[in-house]
C-alpha cells in the first residue's frame, strides 16, 4: 500500500524553502538517528512525516512507563510489554508513513560497530543520552565526512549545534574530553516542551541540509531555557582547533579506538547500569530464561529477558548486554552480572 499521493507533501512543497525540488532531494535522503528516546522519537517522527527516503534508528533501551510523558512514539502497551524502543518506534513510524523505509536496530553504539550504521548515510541526528556515544559519532562523522546535528536537553533547557565536517568546529573542538556523568546527567528531570524545542532546532537544520539549502543553516550553537525564558545563539567558528584530534590536521579519531570506551556505563538519572559482554556473543534467551528462573521471576518477550530479583531487576538482550536496574553503582552492578553470567 502506498499513500504517497500527490497531496501528501503539498504543504511542504508550497513552503518557499523546500518546493518540489527540495522534496525530491529529501525523498532520496538517508538519515541515521542515534537513540530512540525523547529526542529520537521527536526527530524521527518529523523526518518520517516529511518524507525522507530512509530513516534508521539505533537504540539500546526498551520502553518504560516513565518514558511516556515525553517520548511521543510510544504507547502504554509498549511499556507494559517492555518493547525495545527501536522496535516500537519503527513500528509506529511505518504506520505513520509507509512510503518511507524505516529501520529500527536494537544495539548499543560502539566504536567497533558504528561504521555498520553510517554507511551511505547523508545526515546523522544525535538523540543520544551520553557524551561517550556523541564523541564516537563525532569521530566517524569527521572521518567519513557526514554532517551531524548535536542535540541534548534536560529540565527546561536544550542545546543544539550542526556540525559540518571540514567547515564547523566539531564537538571535540568544543569539549576536550568526555564530560563526566555528573555535570551533564539529567537528574533535573525534563519537560516535554524542552524535547520538542530541541528536536525542532535539529530537524529544521536537517530539512535545510537534505533539501539543498546549505546557506540557510544556522551556523551557531543555540541554547534555550523554556522556564526562565532565556535564549542564546553563539558563533563557535573561532573555536575550531587546528590541532583537534578529531577534525584537525593530524587527526587520529581517538574515540574510534576500541579501547576508548568502557564496558560499564551508568545510565544518567536512571538508577541503572549497563554492562557489555567482554566479547561478541549471541544469547539464546529461552535457554537463559530456564537457567535464571531459579533465582527470580524471569519474563521473556521476543527481544529481551527480564529477571526480577529481591532488590534489582536485570534486562538481558540477545547481544549479551545487561541493564542492571536498582543501582547506580558500577561495582555492585558488575558483581551481580558476574554472579549470573560468570
Amino acid at each position, binding site marked *: 500500500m502506498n499513500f504517497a499521493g500527490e497531496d501528501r507533501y503539498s504543504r511542504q512543497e508550497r513552503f518557499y524553502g523546500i518546493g518540489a525540488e527540495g522534496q525530491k532531494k529529501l525523498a532520496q535522503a538517508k538519515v541515521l538517528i542515534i537513540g530512540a528516546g*525523547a529526542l529520537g522519537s521527536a526527530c524521527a517522527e518529523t523526518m518520517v512525516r516529511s518524507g525522507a527516503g530512509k530513516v534508521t534508528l539505533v537504540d539500546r533501551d526498551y520502553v518504560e512507563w516513565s518514558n511516556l510523558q515525553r517520548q511521543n512514539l510510544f504507547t502504554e502497551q509498549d511499556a507494559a510489554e517492555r518493547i525495545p524502543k527501536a522496535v516500537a518506534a519503527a513500528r509506529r513510524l511505518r504506520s505513520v508513513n509507509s512510503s518511507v523505509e524505516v529501520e529500527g536496530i536494537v544495539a548499543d553504539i560502539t566504536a567497533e560497530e558504528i561504521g555498520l550504521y553510517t554507511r551511505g548515510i547523508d545526515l546523522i541526528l544525535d538523540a543520544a543520552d551520553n*557524551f561517550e556515544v556523541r564523541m564516537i559519532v563525532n569521530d566517524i562523522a569527521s572521518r567519513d565526512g557526514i554532517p551531524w546535528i548535536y542535540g541534548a536537553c534536560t529540565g527546561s533547557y536544550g542545546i543544539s549545534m550542526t556540525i559540518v565536517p571540514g567547515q564547523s568546529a566539531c564537538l571535540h573542538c568544543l569539549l576536550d574530553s568526555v564530560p563526566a556523568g555528573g555535570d*551533564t546527567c539529567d537528574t533535573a528531570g525534563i519537560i516535554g516542551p524542552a524535547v520538542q524545542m530541541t528536536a525542532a532546532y535539529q530537524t529544521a537544520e536537517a530539512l535545510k541540509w537534505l533539501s539543498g539549502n546549505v546557506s540557510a543553516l544556522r551556523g551557531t550553537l543555540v541554547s534555550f531555557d523554556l522556564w526562565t525564558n532565556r535564549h542564546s545563539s553563539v558563533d563557535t567558528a573561532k573555536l575550531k582547533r587546528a590541532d583537534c584530534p578529531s577534525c584537525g590536521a593530524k587527526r587520529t579519531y581517538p574515540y574510534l579506538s576500541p579501547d576508548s570506551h568502557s564496558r560499564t556505563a551508568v545510565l544518567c538519572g536512571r538508577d541503572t547500569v549497563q554492562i557489555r559482554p567482554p566479547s561478541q556473543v549471541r544469547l539464546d534467551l529461552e535457554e537463559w530464561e530456564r537457567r535464571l528462573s531459579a533465582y527470580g521471576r524471569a519474563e521473556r518477550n521476543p527481544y529481551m529477558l527480564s529477571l526480577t530479583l529481591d532488590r534489582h531487576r536485570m534486562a538481558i538482550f540477545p547481544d549479551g548486554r545487561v541493564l542492571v536496574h536498582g543501582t547506580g553503582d558500577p561495582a555492585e552492578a558488575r558483581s551481580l552480572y558476574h554472579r549470573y553470567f560468570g
Partner: protein
Amino acid sequence: MKLYINGNETELDEACATLADLLSRPEWKERRMIVELNGMIVGRDDFGTVLLADGDRIELVHFVGGG
C-alpha cells in the same frame, strides 16, 4: 564589580579577576561551558588570562547530555 551573566546583574568581589576565577565558582565549576564575553567567543585556553572588567556582559552556555 558588576557583571551581567546570562542577562542577570551579578555583583562580584575584586578577587574574581579572570574568567577562570569566575568559572571556578561553585555554581559553574562542574560544568562544561562555551563562553562569550561582550559578544566575542573566548577559547578555553584563554580563560586563565582574560581579565574581567566592571560592566562586562558574559554569556555562559553549558553542555548537557540528555536526549
